[in-house]
């Protein structure tokens, strides 16, 4: 249909929290359920869509992911999988957290899945003290409480400090 071809060429503008504007092809933006719903309702693609919680660095990453997934045909799943693992490789925790928050806000399920899994894999097999350090989590247990919780699950600490 003529209208759908026309739609494919449409672009929309996203604005990051730090004021940078990104021109995005509509089919790429549709990877995000949030943007899809906005476009399905009255929101005109001529408007600038503000994303007040997502900074430019994160948004650039998110859009890179969306473009790759929008452009790849469904037959290239293997290629997408290797893109996904390469995409997150060497990413620091702060960037991963920003990515998870952005994917959650923009409702990009595939990206949320891989970023959350990457963080979970970092936790696996690490002592809890190290997990606290990596994630900057404050230990709010008293020494007595911690000992009690530990006693409850002795076996999980075999071989751990």
């Amino acid at each position, binding site marked *: 249909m003529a209208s759908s071809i026309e739609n494919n060429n449409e672009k929309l503008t996203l604005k990051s929290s730090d004021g940078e504007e990104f021109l995005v092809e509509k089919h790429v933006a549709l990877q995000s359920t949030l943007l899809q719903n906005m476009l399905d309702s009255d929101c005109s693609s001529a408007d600038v869509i503000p994303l007040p919680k997502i900074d430019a660095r994160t948004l650039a990453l998110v859009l890179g992911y969306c473009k790759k997934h929008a452009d790849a045909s469904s037959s290239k799943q293997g290629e997408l999988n290797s893109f996904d693992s390469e995409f997150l490789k060497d990413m620091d925790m702060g960037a991963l957290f920003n990515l998870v928050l952005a994917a*959650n806000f923009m409702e990009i399920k595939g990206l949320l899945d891989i970023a*959350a899994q990457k963080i979970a894999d970092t*936790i696996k097999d690490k*002592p809890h003290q190290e997990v*606290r350090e990596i*994630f*900057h989590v404050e230990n709010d247990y008293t020494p007595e409480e911690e000992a009690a919780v530990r006693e409850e699950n*002795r076996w999980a600490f075999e071989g751990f400090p």
Partner: protein
Amino acid sequence: MAATTIADLPDDIICNILVRIPDIKSIIRCNHVCKMWRKLILQPYFTKSHSSRGSPPLSLMLYHPSDGPPPDPAPFGILIPTKPRHFGILELGNDNLTRFGYKNATVEFEYEIYIDIPREGYKGQVIGACNGLVCLRVDKDIVVCNPILQGRRPFVLPKLPKWAYSRSRLGFGFSPLISDE
């Protein structure tokens, strides 16, 4: 701008991350990171969604301990507990799952998880596992426990009528119709 930390993530995202940790041992250690993580892990939703992810290496196998010396060589499917009088849940690694179905295949287990039933000299048997809960028969009692809460006392079900012990086979399942969630 200060770097984003895990404290900036809402509870549902933290839960979404923790539920993806494949092995139960790591999850239990996460109990100790802070009180909020413990709260997230102990909610019923967590156990349910963790066990329903179901992808390897989450698969669980059960064995029950034998009283005598271990048979040598151990027949396939019967695993020797390293601690007597404990029930064990064994968590299989990815590599092992592919070996199932082959004759004389041996399987290595990544973890042994013990459910300690504090009773001397019982005869025990595994009834089943479902939604992250494990159901065991210990002597004349049917007990249900959650390995993530290993230190808590198992829940003992009311006694069955006498005939049920000799003439019935027991199973353990979950009915979504009467779920309280």
